[in-house]
């Protein structure tokens, strides 16, 4: 009888086996719980309500209406050349008509206060790819990007996993509404220096995820001066720029640059996408807008790994270059998000919960620190667990966003119907009432 010799199994790379994909964190664990027991108004009214996914579902009807009445968007027109040209088009420059439409859409969102050149628009399959691409381009393995906390949990994976680049946090706290200060910037830079790590840039998200607030003009000026002094890059992820509740409150880095006649602008790169503002994450549409020629050239070439389907480019070019549609969409979307935001803030307030004052995004930044047993990360996770398994709400704990203060949670409100939001608020209300009763019982 032959003896089975154990063959060493064929090895995989460090990237493949690393944990840097971060999918074992609570941020993702909550999603799993939701997947296993998803809320449905009719069929599963006691299921988990997903409030951990920043998706915008409030304006689908506008998109549908457009597509119904503009069939040229989803077809290629009569005549042979339309379809085949599109099907063959794999040029990493991207369809000019689509780049023009994106540039014009970005200008409209900023109320015409900044101009965008279609030749500087680089297309990627989503902002996820855009952020990773920029990281590959701006930093070498072992270098670092400075990122203000709290930040989007996905950055740990998107900026670090394959690139080998590190994130050094710029600590922000509630004492000044989590705004970025020059001291915090300097401290983060020194921290990196002390660890012998070369800092290549600062990456900000404006409007911020998870804070749901825009960055003030003076702060943007300070950040820009800082990166200029240190001669490093600035990446501004403006993916929520179209989801600001009032148009006058968003200042883009592009405006700061234009006010300075684009001096020193070659260090600035803007990331944008249609996943949040237009609610089309399934389409995989992202862009890098860079003021640096070398970065544009390189990003374009590297985008071969993450091209947007030419069919999708064609469809969206048609939609986004229709000024009537885009103006109406931007305005209506804003109003609806503001309405939702007010609804959730009111609902939380009447349950005794305060949030950070926000003015943008698909979520609010909720303060549950008074509820913590212990003002620690463990305390926060324990509370998060209760919210998930008792209250059946999936919300995102601040620790998964690297928030330095325990007790803050990101709560998404745009990925559900108004009715579902009411159900969620009711559950929170009941939860808070029960806690109050239990506390009073203990006192007696």
């Amino acid at each position, binding site marked *: 009888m032959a003896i089975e010799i154990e063959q060493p199994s064929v090895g995989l790379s460090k990237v*493949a086996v690393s944990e840097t994909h971060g999918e074992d964190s609570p941020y993702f664990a909550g999603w799993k719980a939701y997947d296993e027991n998803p809320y449905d108004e009719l069929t599963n009214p006691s299921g988990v309500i997903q409030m951990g996914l920043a998706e915008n579902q409030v304006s689908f009807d506008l998109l549908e209406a457009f*597509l119904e009445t503009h069939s040229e968007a989803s077809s290629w027109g009569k005549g042979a050349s339309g379809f*085949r040209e599109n099907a063959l088009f794999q040029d990493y420059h991207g369809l000019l008509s689509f780049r023009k439409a994106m540039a014009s859409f970005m200008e409209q969102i900023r109320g015409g206060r900044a101009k965008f050149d279609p030749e500087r628009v680089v297309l990627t399959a989503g902002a996820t790819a855009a952020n990773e691409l920029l990281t*590959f381009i701006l930093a070498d393995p072992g270098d670092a990007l400075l990122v203000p906390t709290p930040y989007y949990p996905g950055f740990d994976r998107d900026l670090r996993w394959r690139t080998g680049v590190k994130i050094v946090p710029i600590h922000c706290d509630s004492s000044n509404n989590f705004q970025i200060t020059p001291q915090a910037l300097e401290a983060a830079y020194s921290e990196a220096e002390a660890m012998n790590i070369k800092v290549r840039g600062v990456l900000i998200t404006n409007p911020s995820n998870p804070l749901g607030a825009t960055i003030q003009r003076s702060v943007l000026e300070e950040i820009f001066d800082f990166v200029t002094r240190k001669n490093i890059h600035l990446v501004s992820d403006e993916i929520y720029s179209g989801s600001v509740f009032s148009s006058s409150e968003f200042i883009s880095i592009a405006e700061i640059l234009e006010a300075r006649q684009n001096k020193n602008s*070659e260090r600035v790169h803007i990331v944008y996408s249609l996943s949040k503002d237009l609610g089309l994450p399934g389409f995989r549409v992202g862009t890098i807008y860079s003021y640096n020629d*070398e970065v544009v*050239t390189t990003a374009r*070439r590297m985008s071969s790994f993450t091209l947007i*389907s030419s069919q999708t480019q064609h469809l969206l070019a048609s939609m986004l270059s229709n000024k009537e549609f885009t103006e109406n969409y931007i305005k209506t979307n804003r109003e609806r998000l503001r309405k939702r935001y007010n609804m959730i803030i009111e609902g939380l307030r009447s349950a005794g919960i305060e949030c950070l004052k926000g003015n943008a995004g698909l979520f609010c930044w909720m303060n549950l620190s008074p509820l913590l047993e212990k003002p620690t990360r463990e305390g926060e996770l324990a509370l998060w667990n209760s919210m998930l398994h008792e209250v059946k709400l999936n919300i995102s704990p601040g620790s998964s966003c690297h928030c330095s203060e325990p007790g803050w949670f990101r709560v998404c409100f745009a990925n559900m119907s108004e009715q579902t939001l009411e159900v969620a608020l009711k559950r929170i209300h009941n939860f808070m009432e029960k806690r109050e009763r239990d506390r009073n019982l203990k006192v007696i």
Partner: protein
Amino acid sequence: MTRPRPRTPESESETRNPTGGGATAMRLIVPLQGVVQGRGGLILGSLIPCALFYFFQLYLKRHRSPKPGSNPTSPSQSSSNLPDLQRSSSRSNLSSRGSIGPVQVSSRASSIARPNDSPYYIGLDRVSEDPYHRLDNPNGIIQLGLSENRLCFDLIEKWLSENTKDSVMGRDGGDLSISGIAPYQPSDGLVEFKVAMADFMSQVMGRAVSFDPSQMVLTAGATPALEILCFCLADPGNAFLVPTPYYPGFDRDMKWRTGVELIPVHCRSTDNFIISITALDQAFNQTRKRGIKVRGILISNPSNPVGNLLPRETLYNLLDFAREKNIHIVSDEIFAGSMYGSEEFVSMAEILDMEDIDKNRIHIVYGLSKDLALPGFRVGVIYSFNESVLVAAKKLTRFSSISAPTQRLLISMVSDTRFIQEYIETNKKRIREMHDLFVEGLKQLGIKCAQSCAGLYCWADMSGLISSYSEKGELELWDKLLNIAKINVTPGSACHCIEPGWFRCCFTTLSQEDVVIVIERIRKVAETCKISS
């Protein structure tokens, strides 16, 4: 991009033409060593020639540093990226007066930003600047350097006109709304699309093997599929063995961001460019001696640029080799549905079906860019038998997912088995017709092609037309073909072919009339070559 070693004509002729600079140097050194006798002889005898050789190299270096645009083999002045680079660096120098200089990008980026120096890319650029058009630009450059298939669009267009309104919007369960395709989808593809693709692959490969959708990961094209596999199977500094000649894009796709090395394993025309295990073994050992760890073998089957198939026995031998060395095999089967000959295509998957062996080392890449002629839609497949690879690859697809409306459209198309059957058969017939026409035309000019039965191109031996049997000679001919005959073909050196004079000519972008024009243009150049030799 990490460039392959610089291919200036002089350096190449040193390695491939023994009458080059290296031999001249030796003719100097050897007698010199004889001159210096006695005890000091050994030292001086080595030192002096070394010093002379060093100064000689220094002289050569200073006088032949390639300036873009002045290199005779790349006449293209058009690297439009170069003026941009100069402009940007001068602009930023102005603005950062007195400071540390312009803000730097990473070293990975710096190498990618440089103008393309491979004839493969230069040729593609030239065509886009001066593209042939029968009516509008009859003196333009005819494209034979891009393996695109334009022969069967009429079939797809017909299918679309009969089927489309529903597909984009999502007809399932009567749901015509965009809310079906707009939200976040699984980054590795819709389940229905995987099911459709698994069946499509099986159909395209003659139903000799079936594919399991749960072993599939979908990506935005075969380009990221390959890169993702590379990231999963190898660490920076590791290597893959690749039989030559190979698709020039591998140098970019597999190496750029992964930091992985590609080690060529040279194949010969006497073997019809089929890989020999001896050569593979040699390459493996040499690489190991250099301290580089080999993680796998990358094969393309059907092969690009030759267009032949790997015989069953070769596939078995490759499997044995991989097992013995405990490495992976990545089989790029993207042309499996573009067969026009009578031979049967055997997928790696089919071999594995028959053997009860360790399948964890086998990974297949596929896509719709060639067989269904839809490169713009970005549809690629990683098919792996390794659970851990599938888990990691799935997570990595978040950086290269296929757009949902495109998936929706293609689910319908690709599941229409009757349509696909008609498409495959018609496609086969039309490629064969074009192939026969083109190859016959070349034959009339005395140019023979390698045996091939698949792909969208032929592998033509034009060594009879080159002035010196070297890469330099080959590139001179390529230059003539590009600038005088005004056709863009891919020279073998861009594919790392060890034998000079071979050219890949893609013919599926041509009409029958175009073929006649192309052959005529080649004939004119061929005549001038014969006259001058």
